[in-house]
């Protein structure tokens, strides 16, 4: 279905009189003016108006029918060097999702979701226009299965890309086990322009035998190139209240479409080992730190150190500071980010600074700075006004400004 038609369906759904909707209906509207900088357009300072609409409605005696929709229309007020799929002159539309979800369509056995929706299972996550079914309550307790099929949707550049005869289908089966353990097997296949483009299978395993230990494993196999595309093994240990230690080994390989020239190259895999610690002392304090070692081909590697804290000295005051340092293959990056938020009556005042020093391998380097401030005023339960401003100092601009002003309405 094309975007204008789907947007029309969303608008009609919102316009239905309340008695026809019954159940619980939530509608959110956000009208926004945005200003931003586009270094690839002749007019660097870009201005835009955007209208968002979101619908969330539940029906049925048990609230088992849910209709969800989310979309936006943007109007570009300035010229940009883009060739997007337009609804009209400088007018772009994007429908994120619009679906009906029926739990227990066949009581105790089958759930159905139809329309446009994000599908996260089945190994190739994507947005599709299609249908998903979930089976449960059959066979041994804890056994479940899902299947989906539909037209793949690519959201890009304010709109969505024209349909390229791209189809996606998949299935998964899961089994809940003892010791809060679970196994799930997934499969997905994608066709582009009528030909097989991607196909993969995956196995996910998780177990939390006690509240102190959790293990996760994931393996994904790319059937097109006949190789492992993703392997993950992770462990989390919580020896005392509030303290979590984690370790992780992750390996991945780039995946290309079946018709791509790149898939013929037997490239090395990326390998990452990570250890981290997080400590939470009630709401007032959270501390964390991690170290990751990344390994690339030909003895190239990189080290990444991250750390930070979130401090809430008063119930209405939050200070969040994070630090990241990476050095090795591809370049060096060191950055610190700080954020302060304070709630005064109906207003939330926020502000922050980002400071990133970067040195790309054999190319550009510099120091990027970002300063921002935001005010969010909840005028009433139904209305909120937000104003945000940001100043950037980057490699491309000595300085530029961006931000937005908006009105949210919750019905």
């Amino acid at each position: 279905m094309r975007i204008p038609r789907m947007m029309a369906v969303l608008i009609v759904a919102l316009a239905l009189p309340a008695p026809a909707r019954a159940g619980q209906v939530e509608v959110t509207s956000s009208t926004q003016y945005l200003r931003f900088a586009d270094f690839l357009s002749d007019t660097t300072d870009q201005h835009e108006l955007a209208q968002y609409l979101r619908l969330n409605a539940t029906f049925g005696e048990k609230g088992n029918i849910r209709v969800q929709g989310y979309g936006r229309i943007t109007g570009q007020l300035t010229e940009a060097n883009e060739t997007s799929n337009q609804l009209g002159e400088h007018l772009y539309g994007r429908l994120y999702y619009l679906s009906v979800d029926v739990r227990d369509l066949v009581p105790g056995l089958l759930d159905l979701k139809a329309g446009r929706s994000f599908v996260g299972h089945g190994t190739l996550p994507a947005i599709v226009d299609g249908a998903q079914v979930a089976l449960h309550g059959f066979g041994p307790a804890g056994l479940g299965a899902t299947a989906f099929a539909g037209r793949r949707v690519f959201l890009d550049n304010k709109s969505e890309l024209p349909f390229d005869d791209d189809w996606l289908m998949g299935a998964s089966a899961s089994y809940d086990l003892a010791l809060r353990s679970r196994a799930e097997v997934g499969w997905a296949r994608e066709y582009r322009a009528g030909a097989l483009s991607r196909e993969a299978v995956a196995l996910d395993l998780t177990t939390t035998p006690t509240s102190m230990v959790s293990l996760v494993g994931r393996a994904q196999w790319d059937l097109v190139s006949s190789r492992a595309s993703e392997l993950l093994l992770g462990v989390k240990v919580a020896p005392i209240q509030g303290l979590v230690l984690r370790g992780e080994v992750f390996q991945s390989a780039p995946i290309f479409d079946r018709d791509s020239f790149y898939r013929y190259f037997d490239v090395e895999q990326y390998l990452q080992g990570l250890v981290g610690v997080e400590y939470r002392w009630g709401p007032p304090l959270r501390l964390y730190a991690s170290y990751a070692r990344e390994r690339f081909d030909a003895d190239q590697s990189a080290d990444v150190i991250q750390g930070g804290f979130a401090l809430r000295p008063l119930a209405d005051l939050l200070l969040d500071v994070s630090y990241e340092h990476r050095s090795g293959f591809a370049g060096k990056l060191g950055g610190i980010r700080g954020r302060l938020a304070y709630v005064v009556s109906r207003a939330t005042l926020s502000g922050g600074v980002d400071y990133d020093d970067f040195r790309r391998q054999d190319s550009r380097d510099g120091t990027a700075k970002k300063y921002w401030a935001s005010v969010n005023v909840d005028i009433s339960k139904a209305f909120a006004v937000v104003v945000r401003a940001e100043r950037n100092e980057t490699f491309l601009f000595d300085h530029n400004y961006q931000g937005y002003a908006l009105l949210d309405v919750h019905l």
Partner: protein
Amino acid sequence: MSSLRKIFIAVAALAAVAWAPPARAEDHRQYADTKPEDCTECHRGSGVMENHGVAFQSDHRLAARRTPNNCGDCHLESWCSDCHHGGNLDRRPSSSLSRRGEAMPSSHAADAVSTHAIKAAQDARSCARCHDSGRFCSDCHAKQIDRNRGGMTIKPHAPTFLGGLPDPTWVAFHRGEARRNLASCQACHPSKSDCSNFACHPSLGGR
């Protein structure tokens, strides 16, 4: 033993430990307005590990892949769309706007245009979770090449020749770069014709 095999064995061992009857996630809809830090009030000693911590930004994809999962008990789908696809309804105050006016998640540092070359090397697959790598990268890179090729300021890598044949030093460099991060090549050279112009890789299939 290769690291690949070690990880497969570890995953299989995990499967063996876990194999036995069930336990299911509870419906959390009634707790939708609860702050994550208050979850421990119920979960302490319940056998469920704390989540929604700092690492959850990278870990949440594993939870979201589960079917069924209980993400929807507290979050609408727009919570996902706004981070993954540039929406600005469930916004984070610290999020900047991209050059196209789309809200960007916090994984995009200040001057994301300059730093993305470093960040993308870490795990290019994480970029592909929101961006279709074949189109998103080449669209912007092609525009920049058309507009100002020199402004790309990337490592010089045009082929050099000795006596009409590719310079062996350049060949070794080219091979090494491609093996370390082949996906980045695709950003500017999306199709085979970019490489076969000078008769390299003549026998390989694909477009």
